[in-house]
């Protein structure tokens, strides 16, 4: 059952990313997989992350023509940073920890994107400079991602509470 979920989850995550890019595609595209990563970390369900989000991120980068693994880098960065912070300080599934992880995860992915673009631009791998990326970076999309992470995370948490924790949370 879980394998079926993972197999279906990959194209679903792929389609979700493409759809969000088409829906909110003003300036720099939104990254719903980063949002999913933060929620998954907060819910402490890393198997979903490993078997659904990571392949979907790899698939997205593979389908893009720019040869920059931005989605993989952002997903791994968001996962690494939020997991580290969560294990050290924000150990519960409270709303405050969700807000903290979301803010931190999105901030780190933004910085990582800037660094990757800067290096790629220096290495002549991309024509997109950091300055033009900052210009096209849309505050609306960042806020939307932030709000979506908190809202969906809290919603899933509530649903999991209602249906029983074993439904959503993985056992480690």
């Amino acid at each position, binding site marked *: 059952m879980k394998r079926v979920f993972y197999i279906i989850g990959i194209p679903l995550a792929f389609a979700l990313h493409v759809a969000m890019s088409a829906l909110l595609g003003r300036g720099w595209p939104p990254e719903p997989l980063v949002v999913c990563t933060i929620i998954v970390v907060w819910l402490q369900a890393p198997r979903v992350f490993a078997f659904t989000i990571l392949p979907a991120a790899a698939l997205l980068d593979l389908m893009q023509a720019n040869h920059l*693994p931005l989605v*993989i880098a952002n997903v791994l960065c968001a996962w690494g940073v939020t997991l580290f912070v969560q294990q050290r300080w924000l150990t519960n599934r409270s709303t405050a920890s969700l807000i903290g992880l979301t803010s931190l995860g999105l901030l780190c992915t933004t910085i990582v994107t800037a660094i990757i673009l800067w290096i790629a631009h220096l290495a002549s791998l991309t024509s997109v400079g950091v300055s033009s990326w900052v210009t096209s970076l849309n505050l609306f999309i960042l806020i939307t991602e932030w709000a979506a992470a908190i809202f969906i995370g809290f919603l899933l948490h509530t649903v999991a509470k209602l249906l029983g924790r074993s439904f959503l949370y993985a056992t480690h």
Partner: protein
Amino acid sequence: MSYLGWSIAATLVVAALISFGSLAPLQRIIAPVFAPIGRAASAVVERFRAMSAGQADRATLQKENDSLKQQLVSTELDRAALQQQIAELQLLRDEADFLKRRSLSGISARVIGRAESSAQLLLVDAGTAQGVKLGQPVLAAGGVLVGIVSDVNTSTSNVRPLTADGTSVGVRVDRPDGPTGILVGERGTGIRLTLVPKSETLQPKQSIITSEVNPQIPSGILIGTISSLRTVAGALFQEATIIPTIPYEQLTVLTILR
């Protein structure tokens, strides 16, 4: 190493290969599978966006429609007022032409009120301040006699239409040597021609004009036409019902002859 660790390691390898552009053959293999998924997702979003835009357009169109409806009502009111002014101007011009032709002078007045029985009394916005005097004839629509001034105030006057009770005007049929008679009002509803000798010939549709017997009313002013004849056996005179040339309910601008 756990599954998670292997997954991360594999992802990092993929990321590195993507950076070096080494996965182009793999991309050619998976593109036919995932490109349609991406296109379908984009199409769904585009359709959703188009529907949202359609809703927004509909709301905007509804607002514009409401606004245009209000403008249309306003324009219709303006147009009606303008047409009223044009009609009144035409009446005034016709009356001015009539007065000029007959070498008469008059005072223009507007009907500003009516008695409860509208056919019995008209209130006009001219009085002694404008030179109106009691008994002066009142014309409408290019020289048709419609009433007599029955009461005068400083700035308003009452006009008694020819249909009102008590009105009496000397008239004759509009033809050479036409028979004369007296025209009287009938309870505000009609006009009757009386005192026409039976020996005279009256016919329907003959025009009735003022005669020379009225001291304040010039002769030859049109009043109406004969509608029907009333002859009583043994009577000395015959009578006729007169239809006014102008419906008195529609009077708006009048000329009071000096």
